[in-house]
């Protein structure tokens, strides 16, 4: 079920703070965040976030199309190298 509109978009407070600071400093550094659950807001466009995937911070350059989605969608948590059987079949 979708989130109620009257609540507004969910963003962890520290993400907002960090984004604000980066905007003011005008430096284009990667902002490290762990909050994969935060919504991408319009004021984040143009900033680069390092979204944690459980192992490292994946750099995500926020564009206009990403607004409304969550940071976690841009930082995959699983690496899939295929099945062993597939490789065996290919070698033959």
């Amino acid at each position, binding site marked *: 079920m979708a989130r109620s509109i009257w609540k507004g978009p969910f963003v962890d407070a520290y993400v907002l703070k960090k984004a604000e600071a980066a905007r003011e400093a005008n430096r284009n550094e990667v902002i490290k965040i762990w909050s994969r659950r935060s919504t991408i807001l319009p004021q984040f466009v143009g900033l680069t976030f390092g979204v944690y995937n459980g192992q490292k911070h994946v750099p995500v350059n926020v*564009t206009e199309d990403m607004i409304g*989605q969550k940071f976690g*969608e*841009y930082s*995959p948590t699983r690496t899939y190298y295929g099945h062993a*059987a597939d490789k065996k*079949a290919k070698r033959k």
Partner: protein
Amino acid sequence: MARIAGVNIPTAKRVPIALQYIHGIGPAVADKICEAVKIDATRRVNELSDAEVLAIREYIDANVTVEGDLRREVTMNIKRLMDLGCYRGLRHRRNLPVRGQRTHTNARTRKGPAKAIAGKKK
């Protein structure tokens, strides 16, 4: 023969049914069109006058995305997701289910026919 929205020529069927032969028109939209142009749902396509067919055609042109335009819109949306590098886009790229379904078993619609794995069994 009635041609509406390009290539579609369904006749001898009731209007709301015949309209559903057009890609992008289902039961709900078909009923809505009939209501908007004031054609009784029990009438058949070959009973319609030229003016009525024209009215339907104009209504569809103005209000509904159908056929090629709709297909293009859908592929554009998928392409946008793929270019974005988001999770949904990655799933589209790999031809796997996009909406969080299980892939341990099933998911055959997206994955295609099952491939036999050598040396499985027992």
